[in-house]
C-alpha cells in the first residue's frame, strides 16, 4: 500500500459517506410529500430528458446558455476522467494506461482538450456573472467559489500531467505532447527537479478539491447537478397545469398550509433549482417590483422543508410556517401577486413548477382562514350569488343581444354554443366585441345559440384565486347544463373561458370542443365563408398575446394570420411576444384586485406596445383589452385604439 493510498482511501470513504448522508438528508425529505404518479409515458419522458436535459433546449433559449451547455458536456467527459482518478488513487493498478492505444490515446486527448474548454467556460461564466449577472443578487460568494473550484480542478489536472511530462524524454515525451497537447504547454514551467513535488501537490489539490466539490453539491444550488436530470424526466406532462380538484367533505382540510401538503415531485423541485433567475426575469410581479419572485418561492420552499423536515418525519406538526415572512416562508403578498401567466413555467430549464405551487396556498388562505385582499370579498359574493363578478342581475346577461334578437341555443339544431362570458355579457366595452363576433358568425352563416340568462360564469378567476369551493359549485352547475342541453361545440371570445371550459372542466367529466373566436374567424375566412370586401385600415397594428390564449393554450398563429388577412399586413410584434409574451396584469384573478406595490403591470406592457408606435393595439381577450385600454389612458396615448380581433375582422368584413 502506498502512502497516498493510506491517506486518500480513508479520506475518500469519509467524504463519500458525508456526501451520501447530505444527499439522503435532503432527498429523503421528498418522501414527506403526497404521492403523484410521474412514471407514465416513459418513452416521452426519455425523449424529453434527451432534448431538455442532455440537449439543454431550454438552457439554450438564452445566449449565456451556451456556456452552461459547454460545462455540462465537459462534465460528462470529466466524470469518466475523475472516476479513473479516484480509482487510481485507491487502486494504483487501475489506470487508463492499461487501455489499448486505440482507446487510450484519443481518450487522453479528449480529456486534455475538454479540461481546457471547461477552464475557458468557467472563466466566461465568472466574467458574465460579474459583468452582466442574470439578476443583481446572483453575484453570490457561493456561485463564484464553485466556479473557482472547477477552475482549480482543471489547473490541478494540468499540473499533474505537466509534472509527468516534465520528467519525460525522447519518444515518450513526443507521445505525451501528442496526447496531452494542452498539459504539455505547461510542462516547461515545472522547475527542474521539482517534477515529483509539483505532481504530488497538484494531485493532492485535485483530490481534495474534488472531494470538497462533491460535498458542496448537496449544500448549494449545485445540487441541481444531481437532481436536474431526474427533475426533467419526472416533469408534469399535462399542459396547461391544472389545479387538483378538492373533495368537499366534512373533516377535510383545503389548500396547503404545511410543506408536506405538496407532492413529492413538488418538493423535489425545490432541490432542483439552479437559481438561474430566468423565472424572475419573466415574472410580471417581480419585474414590477412586487414581493413575488418565483425563484425566491422555490428557495423558501426548500428552506421550509429543511427547517420542518425533522419534525415532520417524526409525525409532528411543522413549526416554521409555510405562509408568512422570512426566508423559509412565502409571504401573503407574494401569494396574491401572481397573475398565473405561466411565464415562469415556460422559462425554467428544468421544468420546476413555480406558479402551481401558489394556488394551493391561496386555497388555504381563502377556504380555511378566510383571509384575502379586501377587494375580493365582493367578487366572491357576487360570483356565488349572481354568478358574475359585478353582481349584476343574472337576468341581464342576454341583454347585449337585444338589438340582434336573443338566439337561444337549441339542442339538436344549433351547431355551436356561443358562450359569451361575463365580460362579453356585462362590460360595456366588451359587449361591443360580443356584438361584432355575433354579426360575423351570422355573416358566415354559422349555426349558433346562446344560453342567455342561464349562462353562468365559468369560474376562472375563482379557481385561480383559490376559491375552489365556489368554483366547484359553478363548474358542476355549468357542466350539468351543458350535458342537459347536449352541448359539444363551444365558441368563446375570452381565453379565460376557453381554458376553463376546455381544460379545467375535463376534471368534471366533460370534453368540449372549445374554439376561440380568433381561431374560428380565421377558419371562416380561409373557407371563404367570410369575404373580405376591403381591408381594415387601422394604421400600424401591434398584437398582444393573452397569456391564457398563448402560453396556456398554444394559440399564437391563428390570431396573427387572421389579422394579416383582415389588414393586409403582418401585425407588428413587441419585443416580448408569443411564448415570451408579457402579461397585461389581469390574470389569476388580479383583474379584480388593486395593484398597490411597485409599477403597474398594465402600464409596463402598454409602454412596450407604444414603443412600436402603433395606431392600433389588437387583443384577443377582454381582460387584456381593459388593461391596455386603461394603460393608454394613463400614458396619455388615447389616440392609440385598443381593439379586439373580432372588431378588426368586422371592419374588414362588415363595413
Amino acid at each position: 500500500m502506498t502512502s497516498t493510498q493510506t491517506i486518500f482511501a480513508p479520506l475518500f470513504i469519509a467524504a463519500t459517506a458525508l456526501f451520501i448522508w447530505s444527499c439522503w438528508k435532503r432527498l429523503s425529505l421528498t418522501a414527506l410529500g403526497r404521492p403523484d404518479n410521474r412514471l407514465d409515458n416513459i418513452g416521452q419522458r426519455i425523449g424529453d430528458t434527451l432534448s431538455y436535459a442532455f440537449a439543454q433546449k431550454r438552457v439554450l433559449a438564452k445566449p449565456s446558455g451556451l456556456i452552461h451547455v459547454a460545462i455540462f458536456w465537459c462534465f460528462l467527459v470529466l466524470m469518466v476522467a475523475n472516476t479513473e482518478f479516484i480509482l487510481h488513487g485507491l487502486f494504483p493498478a487501475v489506470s487508463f494506461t492499461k487501455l489499448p492505444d486505440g482507446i487510450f490515446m484519443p481518450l487522453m486527448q479528449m480529456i486534455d482538450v475538454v479540461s481546457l474548454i471547461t477552464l475557458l467556460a468557467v472563466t466566461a461564466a465568472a466574467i458574465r456573472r460579474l459583468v452582466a449577472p442574470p439578476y443583481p443578487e446572483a453575484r453570490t460568494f457561493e456561485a463564484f467559489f464553485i466556479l473557482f473550484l472547477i477552475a482549480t480542478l482543471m489547473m490541478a489536472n494540468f499540473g499533474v500531467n505537466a509534472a509527468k511530462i516534465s520528467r519525460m524524454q525522447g519518444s515518450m515525451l513526443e507521445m505525451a505532447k501528442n496526447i496531452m497537447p494542452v498539459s504539455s504547454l505547461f510542462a516547461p514551467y515545472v522547475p527542474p527537479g521539482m517534477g515529483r513535488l509539483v505532481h504530488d501537490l497538484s494531485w493532492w489539490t485535485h483530490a481534495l478539491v474534488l472531494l470538497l466539490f462533491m460535498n458542496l453539491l448537496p449544500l448549494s444550488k449545485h445540487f441541481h447537478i444531481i437532481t436536474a436530470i431526474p427533475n426533467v424526466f419526472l416533469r408534469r406532462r399535462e399542459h396547461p397545469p391544472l389545479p387538483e380538484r378538492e373533495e368537499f367533505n366534512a373533516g377535510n382540510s383545503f389548500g396547503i398550509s404545511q410543506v408536506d401538503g405538496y407532492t413529492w415531485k413538488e418538493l423535489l423541485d425545490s432541490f432542483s433549482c439552479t437559481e438561474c433567475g430566468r423565472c424572475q426575469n419573466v415574472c410580471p410581479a417581480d419585474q414590477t417590483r412586487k414581493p413575488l419572485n418565483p425563484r425566491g418561492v422555490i428557495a423558501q420552499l426548500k428552506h421550509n422543508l429543511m427547517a420542518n423536515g425533522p419534525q415532520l418525519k417524526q409525525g409532528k406538526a411543522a413549526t416554521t410556517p409555510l405562509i408568512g415572512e422570512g426566508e423559509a416562508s412565502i409571504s401573503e403578498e407574494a401569494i396574491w401577486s401572481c397573475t398565473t401567466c405561466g411565464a415562469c413555467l415556460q422559462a425554467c430549464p428544468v421544468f420546476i413548477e413555480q406558479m402551481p405551487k401558489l394556488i394551493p396556498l391561496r386555497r388555504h388562505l381563502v377556504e380555511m382562514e378566510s383571509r384575502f385582499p379586501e377587494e375580493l370579498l365582493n367578487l366572491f359574493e357576487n360570483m356565488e350569488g349572481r354568478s358574475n363578478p359585478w353582481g349584476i342581475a343574472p337576468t341581464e346577461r342576454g341583454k347585449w343581444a337585444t338589438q340582434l334578437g336573443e338566439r337561444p341555443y337549441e339542442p339538436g339544431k344549433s351547431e355551436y354554443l356561443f358562450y359569451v362570458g361575463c365580460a362579453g355579457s356585462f362590460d360595456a366595452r366588451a359587449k361591443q366585441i360580443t356584438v361584432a363576433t355575433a354579426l360575423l358568425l351570422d355573416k358566415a352563416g354559422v349555426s349558433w345559440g346562446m344560453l342567455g340568462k342561464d349562462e353562468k360564469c365559468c369560474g376562472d378567476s375563482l379557481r385561480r384565486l383559490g376559491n375552489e369551493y365556489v368554483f366547484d359549485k359553478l363548474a358542476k352547475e355549468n357542466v350539468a347544463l351543458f350535458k342537459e342541453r347536449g352541448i359539444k361545440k363551444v365558441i368563446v371570445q375570452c381565453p379565460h373561458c376557453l381554458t376553463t371550459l376546455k381544460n379545467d372542466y375535463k376534471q368534471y367529466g366533460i370534453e368540449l370542443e372549445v374554439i376561440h373566436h380568433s381561431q374560428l374567424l380565421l377558419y371562416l375566412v380561409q373557407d371563404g365563408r367570410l369575404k373580405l370586401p376591403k381591408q381594415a385600415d387601422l394604421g400600424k397594428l401591434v398584437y398582444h398575446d393573452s397569456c391564457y390564449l398563448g402560453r396556456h393554450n398554444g394559440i399564437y398563429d391563428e390570431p396573427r394570420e387572421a389579422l394579416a388577412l383582415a389588414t393586409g399586413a403582418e401585425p407588428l410584434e413587441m419585443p416580448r411576444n408569443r411564448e415570451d409574451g408579457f402579461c397585461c396584469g389581469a390574470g389569476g384573478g388580479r383583474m379584480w384586485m388593486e395593484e398597490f406595490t411597485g409599477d403597474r403591470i398594465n402600464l409596463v406592457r402598454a409602454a412596450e406596445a407604444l414603443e412600436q408606435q402603433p395606431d392600433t393595439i389588437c387583443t384577443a381577450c377582454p381582460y387584456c383589452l381593459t388593461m391596455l385600454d386603461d394603460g393608454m389612458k394613463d400614458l396619455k396615448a388615447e389616440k392609440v385604439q385598443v381593439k379586439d380581433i373580432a372588431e378588426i375582422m368586422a371592419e374588414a368584413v362588415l363595413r
Partner: protein
Amino acid sequence: MLIVACIKQVPDTTQVKIDPVTNTLVREGIPFIMNPYDTHAMEAALQLKDQFGCRVAVLSMGPPNAEATLRKALSAGVDRAILLSDRVFGGADTLATSKVLAAAIAKLNAEVEPVGLVICGKQTIDGDTAQVGPGIAVRLGYQQLTLVDKVEELDLVNKKLVVSRKLEGRHERVQAPLPAMLTVVRELNRPRYPTVPMRLAAATAEVEVWDNGVLQLDPQTIGLKGSPTWVSKIFSPERDKGEIVGDGYADPEGTVDLLLGKLMEKDLLPL
C-alpha cells in the same frame, strides 16, 4: 351573556317588481339573500363573541325556506339559529313581526341565558321601514340605539355600552345600560367570509324551528290579524321627465350628435 342578531331573508334585487293586482312583491325567479344590513348586525354580534366570548343566537321570522339564510348564519359561526315559522305568523306588518321576535327573545332570556344585546340591521331592503328593531326594543323594554356605526365600549361587569350613531352630517356618541337593542349601518364592519369547514359544518347543523306552539302567542295579536297596517297600493313611481337618447353602444357618434341636437334645441348649451 347571549347576543341575539335578528336577520331576514329578502329577495335579491334592487329592481323590485310589484304585482299590480295584489300589491305584493313578485318573488318568483328571484334568489333570496340575507338582508345586507343584517349581515353587518350578525358580524357585530360575532365580533363581540370573538372579543368577549359571549354566545350568539340568530333569529329570523319567515317561511320554511328561510332556513337557507339561517344556515348561512351558522356557516359564519353563530351558536344557535332559530327560525320562527308558523302560518299564524304570516302576513305580519312590522308591529306583529316585532311582537313575535320579542317573544322569542324573551323566551331565550328566561329559559336559556340572559340576553344582553339584540342587534338588527337598520332596515330591510324589501320593506325599508326600519321599524322592527325599535319595535322589539319597546316591547322588551330595552334601550334602543339606532344607526350604530361603531361599538366603542362594551362593559360586561357594569353592564353598559358606548356606541357611535351615524346621523345626518354628524355622529353621536351614546352610553346606555344593558340590555340594549342596536340597529346598525354598513359602515360598522366588514362581514366575514365563511371558511369552507364552517360551511360544511353548517350544512348538517341544526336550524331550530319554533312555531306558535313554542311561543304561545294569542293568534289575534300576530300575523295578518295582528297587523294594523294595510297596504293599499304599491307602485314604482313613474319617471315623468327625461328620455333615453339613441343607443350609445351601437352608434356612439350618431348618439352624440342626436344628444347635442336635443340639448341645442332646448337651448341648454351655452353657444
